[in-house]
């Protein structure tokens, strides 16, 4: 069981840990240098055999420490989740040790996190983009990246030559649909970001 006793014992065993407030599962803050040994001991001695998720958070350009990673582990024995939050110390070249040697499942998660946030996982066996193409220059889930995208050439030169196609910022008309999270529910149904022309209002020329 993941209860207070279990949490306390973990905090005692690993002095570098701090507990974070959380509404659901127990969450620890772990320094990057100790992440590997902590995760390994969780797997080998505490029975957390499954890595459920590995992702990152961009806290925005103003934050002291802009990037952090989040790992969710699950234990079939303890029947519960554990969340491990680690902060990248360098904002310009965020780095984190790769846990893929301990949980092979982390391999693609770390590639995705690298692809979307630009966080480098040291000692990752194959750290290259997994969703966007290799030459793509941006990291789409960073806070300063616009949803519509940024002008970028397509990867294949011969196709571009014939089609003249390139990555262009998408119009915000007709979706994506976002709902405001303030006000009453009935007023906050999802709306397109740009409603300057709709079925009712003519498209401006």
């Amino acid at each position, binding site marked *: 069981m993941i209860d207070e006793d279990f949490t306390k014992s973990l905090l005692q065993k690993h002095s570098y840990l701090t507990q974070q407030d959380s509404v659901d599962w127990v969450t620890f803050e772990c320094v990057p240098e100790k992440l590997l040994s902590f995760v390994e001991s969780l797997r080998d001695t505490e029975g957390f055999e499954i890595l459920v998720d590995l992702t990152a958070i961009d806290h925005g350009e103003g934050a002291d420490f802009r990037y952090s990673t989040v790992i969710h582990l699950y234990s079939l024995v303890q029947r519960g989740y554990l969340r491990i939050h680690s902060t990248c110390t360098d904002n310009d070249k965020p780095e984190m040790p790769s846990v893929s040697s301990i949980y092979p499942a982390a391999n693609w998660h770390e590639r995705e996190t690298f692809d979307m946030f630009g966080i480098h996982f040291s000692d990752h066996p194959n750290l290259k983009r997994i969703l*966007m*193409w290799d030459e793509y220059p941006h990291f789409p889930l960073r806070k300063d990246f616009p949803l519509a*995208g940024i002008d970028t050439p*397509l990867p294949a030169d011969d196709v571009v030559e014939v089609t003249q*196609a390139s*990555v*262009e910022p998408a119009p915000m008309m*007709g979706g*994506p649909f976002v709902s405001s999270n303030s006000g009453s529910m009935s007023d906050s149904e999802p709306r397109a970001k740009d409603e300057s022309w709709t079925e009712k209002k003519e498209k401006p020329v």
Partner: protein
Amino acid sequence: MGFACFKRLVRNKHMHMTASDVAYNGKVEGDVVVTRADAVINWIRQHSVWPMPMGLACCAIELMASAASRYDISRFGMEVMRFSPRQSDCMIVAGTVTYKMAEVVRRIYDQMGDPKWVVAMGACASTGGMYRSYSVMQGVDNIVPVDVYVSGCPPRPEALLDAMMKLQDKIGNESSVRNLRKTSAGAVK
């Protein structure tokens, strides 16, 4: 006109005919139909479209449904979906075209032999659909010429069948013989 007549027409062309044979020949009376080459070629093409299922997202499920017994695309002579571009002449783009996939779509299009047609099935393939996003091409017509667009998210199989009938009409009106002399416009090598 049946195929038998057409074949005989072709065979007769190779026989040595005199002027009077052409004017009147009792032996072939009733077997010869005079028509335009365009009409014959288009009639054949129209009723044996070989689709290439470019299934990229949820729309592909409706594409599969239209091939199954309930909607039965074979009523229109297009049930033989080929997964090789070399064996097909109508690419049905069914789904979301990401920028990463766009290159592949174009290459496969270029691998199809002429004459060829493209159907953009669904909102995504036609305009990017609900994906106004950095990763999705806003309409497959940015990279391949589209003949018929189908609205819907996803379009019902009936809508696809309707589009295919429209495509048949379009094929029926082509100047096929004249097009033979056209070189295909810029293909990726």
